[in-house]
């Protein structure tokens, strides 16, 4: 059973090809992430999925239905959280939820949804009195109030503080644990790694990689990344030949290596730099992430 299926999806804005022939199958019950930098075409793609933008070419099916024939039936079964929606400032939290509930034939009791997103204490507060994180949780509550089968979230945690971000992740996780489908766009690799069963890396309107986060990272051939800066440029070819070093690239004076085992690669690297008479000015290591996958695929960073 597919929650969403699209074929050869294309959208053009003037001369810019925002979505360039995307094919995608999202299974029911899956939490699927669209990961890419700003301007990659994530929002355009999702808004076509949500029936808010017409595609120039290609087909979209949501829960086996098409937007042309079954718009209202689809709308009854999906929940949407848009980037940058500002709900009415002078309505209270519960009034806003009751309003959204009134649009749907079936759904949750608004009071219950308040508990799901942890806003019961703000029940009577006006929207304009809410913090950024609380507003975002209300926006999520409006998407959940119809008890949807599929949730579309477009960068739900952008601009939120770490605590609010974790609260949202918990809400999303518990929705997903009920066996429901989530489609999430984000440019936070940590978010995608943590929440998503599968991730499509999207760049310039194309899907350039699609797999589980673990397998995408494994495709780097190494689990760790070592980054260092030096006073003068090091000889990268020699470094690539070191044992356990997968790839090496230099960008803005920072050299980053993917390595299988830090405790073997690091002494070898230090010895090699000593031999080249290159003095290091900084050194850092971390577990390889989807960010590194993106860098490896495009040569650019997600935040660029």
């Amino acid at each position, binding site marked *: 059973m597919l929650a969403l299926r699209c074929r050869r999806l294309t959208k053009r804005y003037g001369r810019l090809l925002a979505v360039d022939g995307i094919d995608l199958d999202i299974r029911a019950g899956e939490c699927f992430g669209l990961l890419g930098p700003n301007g990659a075409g994530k929002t355009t793609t999702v808004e076509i999925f*949500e*029936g*808010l933008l017409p595609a120039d070419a290609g087909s979209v099916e949501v829960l086996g239905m098409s937007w042309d024939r079954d718009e*209202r039936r689809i*709308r*009854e079964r999906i929940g*949407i959280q*848009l980037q*940058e*929606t*500002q*709900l*009415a400032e*002078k*309505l209270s939290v519960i*009034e806003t939820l*009751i*309003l*959204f509930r*009134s*649009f*749907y*034939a079936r759904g949750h009791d608004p009071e219950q949804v308040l508990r799901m997103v942890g806003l019961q204490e703000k029940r009577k507060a*006006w929207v304009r009195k809410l913090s950024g994180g609380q507003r975002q949780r209300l926006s999520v509550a*409006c998407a959940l109030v*119809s008890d949807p089968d599929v949730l579309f979230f477009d960068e739900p945690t952008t601009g939120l503080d770490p605590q609010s971000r974790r609260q949202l992740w918990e809400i999303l996780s518990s929705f997903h644990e009920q066996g429901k489908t989530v489609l999430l766009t984000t440019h936070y690799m940590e978010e995608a790694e943590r929440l998503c069963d599968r991730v499509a890396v999207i760049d310039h309107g194309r899907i350039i990689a699609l797999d589980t986060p673990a397998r995408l990272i494994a495709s780097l051939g190494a689990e760790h990344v070592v980054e260092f800066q030096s006073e003068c440029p090091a000889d990268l070819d020699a470094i690539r030949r070191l044992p356990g070093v997968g790839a090496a690239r230099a960008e803005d004076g920072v050299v980053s290596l993917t390595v299988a085992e830090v405790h073997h690669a690091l002494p070898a690297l230090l010895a090699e730099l000593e031999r080249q008479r290159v003095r290091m000015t900084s050194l850092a290591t971390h577990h390889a992430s989807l960010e590194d996958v993106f860098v490896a695929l495009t040569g650019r960073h997600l935040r660029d």
Partner: protein
Amino acid sequence: MRSRAVWQLSLCKMREFVREPEAVFWVFIFPILLTLALGVAFRSKGPDPILVGVQEGEGASQALAALQAVPGLEVEPVAPEAARQKLREGKLTLVVIPGDPLVFWFDPTRPESRAARLEVNGALQRAAGREDPLSVEIREIHERGSRYIDFLLPGLLGMNLMGTGMWGIGFSIVNARMRNLLKRLVATPMRKRDYLAGQLAGRAVFLFLEVGVLVGFAALVFGVPLRGSLLTLALVSAVGAMTFAGLGLLVASRARTIEGVSGLMNAVMLPMWILSGTFFSTARFPDAMQPLVQALPLTALNDALRGVMIDGASLAVVAPEVGIAAAWGGAAFAGALYLFRWR
């Protein structure tokens, strides 16, 4: 389910309105203050005295004595050098130069000067010995409905219906579009016509309050009459409110910024403030402009409201005006539905 959505949408619209103190001020308080100010400024205080100057010279004292006996005239001697300037500045409406021929010096474009000429001529001729062949008896009419405030109030009511209809609908729609809220709403199964119906229904509730407060205030404070039936007044007001709600919807159908919609609103409303007979009669405009003036929705609404309130007209009598307003409203709705953008 459908009716529940319309109900919730109109309920939320009402809540947003009453939680906006500025909006409440402009809809309810401002018209009352305006009525109060204009009612006091233009209160009926009897005719202004006619200011007549008698140029100093031979025969001036006899003429002064004769004219001072006439009620409604205020007479003063004036030096020949000063006469022209006082006439020009309106400090005198007429200057008499006694003698034979008797000279009347005035600006013929000023109606009160022409009236003064007749008054003064009669008085001086009688003082010189003229006998009037007919005797004269004077009757005065002092009836409610013929004062400026009685003319003004229905116009203010019409203007208020226009302003709140257009702003109340247009502003909130553009605001919702700017905040991406319209887009969020169409992402639900909400029917688009339910949204528009909710906007109108939310507006209609305040309509009757707004009309009632203003008409009640004017009746209590200034004794402005309501001669027609309350039901007819309510019907005419409702048609007027929906007409301007439609125009508000049309103006807001594409605008993406508050500045943009404000400019459009003013472009639509400003001509009607002047042309539609709110503060003075549309008869003051030349004949060539009348077809335009009479075709405006606010002119039609003002005329219908005046007919009902002052002349006690029935719905059948004001039907042509109500028809003009309704036609504007219908056309505006149709245009708005065609042009409307949700994002």
